[in-house]
Structures are given as C-alpha cells and as structure tokens.
C-alpha cells in the first residue's frame, strides 16, 4: 500500500479537461516532483488531492482510505498538509500565531479548553509550534508580524505552518517561485533535509533544476495527461517530455 | 503635576458640597422634562418644548410664587437607554420635584421604573400604554387613553349606521390599545370588525393594505395612526380611488396632517379634546402664543403638553413652600377640575384623567367641530 494513491483522476471545468485520467502514487518517505508546462494541470491535481476541488471521476486514497470527496480540513487532519502557489500566510498575525494555527489544526483545542483548560495542552501546542519554527529558523522572529517578513522568509513560514501539523505527506505548490538562484538552492537543501528525516514530500515546480536535483522520482504532466513517471535521469531523456516542453516553448 | 492633580481631586470632592452649602430659599424650584429633541420623533419633542416654554414664561410672569420655577429639558431621542439615564439624573437633582414626559410609552415606562423606585412624581402628556399609570402611585398622565376614546368613537360610528368596520393601527403599544378598546365596544353595540391589521410605523406605502381593506368591503375604516402615517394613508386612498368614511383618534389631530394630505384629508372624522378655534379665553391665548412662536395652529399634542406643564405648576403652587416630591405627588393626585386648553382635567384614583371628548371633521381644510 502506498502512502498516496491517485487512480484515473479526471477533472473537467466545463469543456476543458484540466486533469485527464492521471494515475500515480507517493510512497512513504519518498520525494516526488510534479512538473509540466504552464496550464498542464499541476495545481489542479494538487487541489484535487487536498480536497479543494472535487473530482469529476477517479479515486484518491491516502494511507489506504479514500479521501476523494472529503473536505480539506479532514484530509489535512489525516496527515497531509500543503502550501499554496501564491503565498498565503496570515499577514496580520505574528509568525508564532501563524504557525500555531497549524499546531492547533492538527491537535485541536476546544473553546472550553481555551477558557478553563490547564496549561498542559497549550504547552503541547506551543512546543509543537516552537519546534516547527526552529526547524525553519524563524524562532528569533516569532513576534514579528507575518506581513513584515521578507518574501523568502514567508516561504519558510508557510512551510513551518504545514510542518506544525506533523504531516506524513507534505505537498508544496511551487515553493521556489519568486526566489533567486541562491535562495532556491538553499530551499532545495532544506526540502532535502525534511525528506531525509523521513517525511514524504510532493512538490510542484517550474524550476526543472530544483526538481531534478532533489527528487527521487518525477511525474510529468502536459495538457492534463501524465506523459512520464520515472527517475529524473530517465525523464530528462524522455523525448515526449522534451517535446512537451519545447513544443510549448517553456 | 501631582499637586495639580491633587487640587483637581480636591475641587471635585468639594464642589458638590459647596452647592449644598449655598442652597437657600430663593433658589428656583425645578421640574425635569424628558422628551425627544433629536432623532426620528424630534418633531413631537420640539413641540412639547415650545408649549412648555409658553406655559412656564406665563407662570413666572404671573408671580404666583415668590420663587422662579425652572424646567430642565433633557433629550431622550425616544431611546430607552437614554431615557433611563435621564431619569436617574433627574432623581439625583434634589431640586427637581417633578418630572414631565416622556413622549413614547416605551421610554416613559422604562424611566417610570426609576421614578417609582426613587419616589418622583411623573406626569406624561402622551404615554398611552394601558399599564403606564399602573406602574406605581407616582405615574400620572393627562391624555385620555383609548379606554375612553375607543368606545366613544365606536358609539359615534354605530350611531351613524356604520356597523361593518375595518380597523387598522400602527404596531405600537398605543396601536394595540386603539384596536382593542374600539373593537370591544363596537361588537358590544352590534357592529362587526371585518378586518384588523397593524402596520409598522413609518410605512411609506399603504396601498397593499388599502386594496386589502377595499376587498373586505367595510362601511368605514377606523384608524390608529399619527398624522404622518395618516397623511400617507389618506393620499394613497385617494389615489386608489377608494372612498369610505375614515375615523381616527386624537393622535391624528394635527394641522400638519392637512398640510401634508391637502384635499385628500377632507372628510376625516376624529375625536379630540382640544379645539383650537374654541372661544374659551385660555385656549385663545394659548393658540395666539403658539401661532406667534410657530406660525401655525397647534394640534392636540402641544396642547396636551401645555396642560401637563400647567397641572404640574399648579401642584407646585398648592404645595409651596413645603414643595417636595411627595407633596407634589399628593397635590397632583388631588387635581380636580383643572381648567386646561384640552378641557377640564380631574385625576381619578387610578391617576388617569377624566376628560370630555369632542368630535371634529376636516371640512374645507380645517378641523371643524361637528355635533352628531
């Protein structure tokens, strides 16, 4: 049983087939890249997996249980957390509070506990939050307002928020978008270390180098269809992939 | 810095004491008047204020008392929150021996709880809630309630052979009492209420309701509205080309009704206890003063306020120099055959007025007395 199984997933928007009969999987502890030219359906596939968009047909299983049709928060609570293509931190909350939302989302805190609860539970939430903050190196800026962070730091903030949920699978939607080369390289190293610690990661990326450099397997989409699914070296040599990229003139 | 603050605190603590110290006999006696001077019902409150000023100026000029009487006006906006705060304020002011107002029953009754607790006589010129005077022995009013006006109207209509009546009234405590007392008497006299409906005060469009009334085919319509809703109602009735006799209460007795509705107000019948064209001298002089101040003839409500102020002043005169809240209350309760512009007022044991009603009809753009 794979960690995440995607079977014959299709999504239509009106006449447009955004994702067309895609089948793939993510194993526990794997680092999978999802690439494709613009409009290939990568983000749509992400949204299908994380419950933000409903499937037209097909099935998605996570840890063996069907999750298609589940609400995003249910899927998240099962251990899959995600980031967004266009940064979506909570700008008017502090860095700590941003990340604590991930912790509280995973652990839960009832209104009653918030008022009358003893500190134990809160300490657990707080500990988890600090752990995530330290992991991405934002502990020093925990009091800063998220809106005041630099663009690069906000990327890490979003990842920290997802990590605070202690997911089994982290899905990253274009994490390197808008970063320069050295920042991208640093991010790549960071994602690598996450994976080294046993966290399964799936990332959508435009940046071929990033994906090819760190992923153990690469899935290629073009016009909603899967055209390749193999190790980076194999994909790089695949004529269909080259055609897809060259044909669209990426 | 510290010194200043200490001084300020000192002044703040001493100030009220010094007031008490300087109080002596020639101090004016004060009456509180809570009324809406701003907000949606400000027009009524402003009328009351003008009427009260006329009454008070005359009183102070007459020299009936060696000291002056003052009226403290406080704006309640017809908001219970503010009304209650004002009531506390009046109660706190030792020199205030009696309170007039408020305009609406709702605010009057909220404030009445305070007056009841503190023992302050309250005389409302307009509060018409059936339970208002029942709150405590401190509440008085000089407006006839619908318990008197409703049956009077019902008898009038039955005597004219109008037995099938549609009753409409605004959805307020007053409107509720309009329909209740009228309908009880009408059915007792063998008439039938073919339809009863309430509308929200300030409804701009009565046409749906009018069409509905027309369908019920009454002989006449009995209405519980104030002049503004009344003017709209009558105009739209004319628009729809619907004509049946319309009867109303003293609340609609206002010159503005005729100004707003114009010829469409013709034929409206109503009861009142104030006749501005009455030959009585007290009425004449009040109307003159009013016209001087406002440029138009006064309606029922200002007259009501004018009388309320005079009744209160009369009670103060009777008790002077031992004027206290309790003595004023007793004097008010003993008011008998007080000659006011709205007729003779006597308070019954229930602190409700016993008054004479008159019938008027709009003829040629004026409220004209009719004998039927």
């Amino acid at each position, binding site marked *: 049983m794979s960690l995440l199984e995607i079977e014959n997933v299709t999504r239509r928007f009106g006449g447009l087939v955004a994702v067309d009969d895609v089948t793939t999987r993510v194993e526990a502890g794997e680092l999978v890249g999802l690439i494709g030219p613009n409009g290939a359906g990568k983000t749509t596939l992400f949204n299908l997996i994380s419950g933000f968009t409903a499937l037209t047909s097909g099935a998605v299983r996570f840890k063996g249980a069907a999750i298609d049709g589940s609400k995003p*928060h249910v899927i998240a609570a099962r251990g899959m957390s995600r980031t967004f293509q266009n940064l979506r931190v*909570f700008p008017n909350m502090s860095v*700590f509070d941003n990340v604590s939302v*991930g912790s509280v989302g995973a652990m839960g805190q009832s209104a009653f506990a*918030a*008022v009358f609860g003893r500190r134990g539970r809160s300490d657990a939430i707080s500990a988890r939050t600090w752990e995530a903050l330290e992991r991405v190196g934002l502990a020093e800026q925990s009091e800063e307002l998220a809106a005041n962070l630099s663009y690069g730091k906000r990327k890490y903030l979003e990842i920290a928020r997802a990590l605070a949920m202690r997911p089994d699978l982290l899905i990253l939607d274009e994490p390197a978008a808008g970063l320069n080369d050295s920042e991208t390289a640093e991010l790549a190293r960071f994602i690598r270390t996450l994976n080294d610690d046993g966290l399964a990661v799936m990332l959508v990326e435009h940046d071929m180098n990033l994906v090819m450099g760190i992923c153990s397997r690469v899935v290629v989409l073009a016009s909603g269809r899967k055209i390749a699914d193999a190790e980076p070296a194999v994909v790089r040599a695949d004529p269909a992939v080259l055609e897809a990229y060259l044909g669209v003139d990426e | 810095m510290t010194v200043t603050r200490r001084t300020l605190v000192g002044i703040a603590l001493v100030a009220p004491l010094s007031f008490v110290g300087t109080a002596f006999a020639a101090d004016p006696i004060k009456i509180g008047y809570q009324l809406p001077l701003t907000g949606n019902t400000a027009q009524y409150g402003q009328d009351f204020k003008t009427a009260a000023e006329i009454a008070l100026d005359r009183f102070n000029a007459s020299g009936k008392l060696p000291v002056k009487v003052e009226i403290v006006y406080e704006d309640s906006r017809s908001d219970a929150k503010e009304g209650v705060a004002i009531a506390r304020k009046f*109660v706190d002011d030792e020199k205030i021996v009696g309170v007039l107002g408020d305009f609406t029953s709702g605010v009057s009754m909220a404030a009445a709880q305070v007056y009841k607790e503190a023992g302050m006589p309250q005389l409302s010129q307009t509060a018409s809630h059936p339970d208002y005077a029942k709150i405590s022995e401190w509440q008085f009013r000089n407006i006839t309630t619908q318990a008197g006006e409703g049956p009077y109207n019902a008898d009038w209509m039955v005597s004219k052979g109008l037995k099938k009546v549609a009753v409409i009234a605004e959805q307020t405590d007053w409107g509720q009492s309009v329909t209740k007392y009228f309908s009880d008497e009408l059915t007792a006299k063998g008439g039938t209420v073919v339809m009863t409906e309430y509308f929200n005060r300030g409804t701009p469009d009565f046409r749906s309701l009018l069409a509905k009334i027309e369908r019920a085919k009454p002989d006449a319509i009995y209405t519980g509205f104030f002049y503004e809703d009344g003017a709209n109602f009558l105009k739209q009735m004319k628009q729809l080309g619907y004509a049946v006799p319309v009867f109303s209460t003293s609340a609609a007795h206002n010159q503005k009704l005729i100004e707003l509705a114009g010829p469409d107000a013709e034929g409206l019948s109503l009861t009142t206890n104030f006749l501005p064209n009455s030959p009585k001298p007290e009425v004449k002089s009040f109307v003159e003063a009013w016209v001087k101040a406002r440029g138009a003839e006064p309606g029922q409500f200002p007259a009501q306020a004018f009388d309320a102020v005079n009744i209160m002043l009369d009670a103060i005169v009777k008790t002077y120099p031992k004027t206290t809240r309790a003595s004023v209350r007793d004097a008010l309760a003993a008011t008998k055959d007080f000659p006011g512009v709205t007729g003779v007022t006597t308070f019954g044991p229930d602190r409700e007025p016993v008054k004479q009603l008159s019938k008027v009809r709009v003829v040629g753009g004026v409220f004209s007395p009719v004998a039927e």
Partner: protein
Amino acid sequence: MSEITRKGWVVPVLLLVLVFAVAPFTLAQFGKGYFFQVANLVLIFSLLAVSLHLVTGVAGLLHLGHAAFYGIGAYVAALMGTDLKLGFLWGLPAAGLVAALFALVVALPTMRLVSIYFAVATLAIGQMINTVLLNWVAVTKGPNGVMLFSGIKLFGFAVKGPLAVYFVVAVVVVASIWVLHRLSHSYYGNALRSLREDDQCADAMGIDTVRLKIEVFTLSAFFAGLAGALWAYTTGYVSPGDFNFSNSILILAMVVVGGLGSLPGAIVGAVLLILLPEVLRGLGDLRNVMVGLVMFVSILFLPKGLFGEVSALAFVRRNLGVKWGAAPSEREVGWR
C-alpha cells in the same frame, strides 16, 4: 524579561481595582443614580462589544444583527421573571442559553456564506428576530414590551440600591469578559483569527472552518444574551425598539472605533460611544452631530482603531504574560 512575566498580574489587578473599588467609590461621590446608570450601560455595552469582537474582530465575520441576540436575552430574562416567576439567577443563564440556541439554529444553514453574503444574512436574521419581538404579541407582548417589576434577588436577598446593582452587573460583565478574553487570546483564538485572514488556507491547516464559525457565532450570542438579561434587570422594562438595527450598528461601531480585532479596543469603543453622547448633553441638539464627527475623525486618523489589534496584542503579551520573542529556554507559557 522574566521580570515582565512576573508583573503579569499587575494590569488585571489594576483593572479589577478600577471596576470594583475606584469606579463605584468615585461614582458614589458624584451622585446617586445617574452615574451608576451610565456605568451600568457602559458595562453592558462593553460586554456586547467584546462579544461582537469575538465574531467580527477575531473571526472576521461582519455581523450586522448582534442586537437581536441581545434582545432575545433581555426578553427571555424579562418573560421568565414575569410569566414564570423565575428570578435573576434563573433568568441570567437562561437568557444566555436561549440566545445561543437561536444563534445555533440560524447559524447551521447560514455559516457557509462568506464575506458580505454572511453580513447581509446576519442583517436579515436580526431584522427577522426584531420583527418577531414586535409582532408576536401572544408571547412577547409585542409593542407593549415587558415590565419586570421584581428586582435582582440573589439567594433570597434583594439587591437594592444603585451600588449593589452595579456590583452585580460588574461581576457578571467582568467574568464574561474574562471568558471572552481567554477565548480570543488562546490557540482557539488563533484558529479564529486564521478564519479572518484566509479561511480557505485555514481549512488546509486542518481547521473545520464551518464548525468553528458556528461555534463562535453561538458563543458570542450567549454573551449577548447575558448582556440582555442585565439590561432587562437594570431597567425593568424591555421593548422591541431597544434591539433594532441601529443598536446592532452601534455595537459594531464600538468594535470598529476601538480597533477591530482588539479586545481592549472593543471596551474602549463601548466606553467612548456610551459616554460621548452623555458628556455632550450640554450641546443640546448638536450632540449627535458631534458623536458622528468624533467617530469620523477617530477613524480617519486611526483607521486601525484607537487600540489596534497589533499594538493591543503586544500590550497584552507584555503585561499579561510571556514575552514571546524570548529564546525558547526562557519561555514560560503564561497567559495562553
């Protein structure tokens, strides 16, 4: 830093001293009833503003019908007191619970709405509840309102006099605000804030946004209901006009003027918008124009409120709990 932590008790104690000792003592100096009445109003509206703050300020749901739940509470307390002869100790919790129950029922279908659609739904709910209060004569006594003669009785003792009533109101309001404070400054509160900032994103963080919205709407209505019961018992007469749309807007204005998202701001807003019209009484007819102008100027120059959320949060943290910027080893989770 740890010194600041230990000072955490200072501000709350100062506030308690102010509410329970300084204020009543000073009020008693100035007058007997009026100042206490205004103080009661300030307390009641502080509670209303803080309860709306939880929905509108923290969870970011523009709520235009809050006064209706306040009204339900007032009517429940008043009707229980008159028709059922159940006094303050029954009426107070019942007012909160019934208001909360109503909120829950209306929240279930409407909480999926977002942004302005939600706002207009709350407006409609508020108007409908008000229409019912006004027109369902058989139960609510309609426009006649309900008169509540029995004052506050606690365990057989009648609470008499403005000072005693003030203390009862103050205890209920302070306890309620404490609860609301704990709610808004907790991880639960952070989850609510995430709804305000980006509810889809919060969803991806495992937060059941619809459920949370329903919860917070219901909780807020509970406290509005308590405020209603206090109003019913302090005035002794309730009528539908006291709970109309204008009052909803007044409460909203308090929350916004004070600083949307800030609990101290909501209280500051309530104090200001209740006291201002009273202080300006001397201006006569002009006073409401002045209230509008003050509101306008305060929003113009301090659009994030007199007591903006960010500064307020920093203030709360500095004074009531741990300094979060501290290195992890020095951390001490105090107020969360």
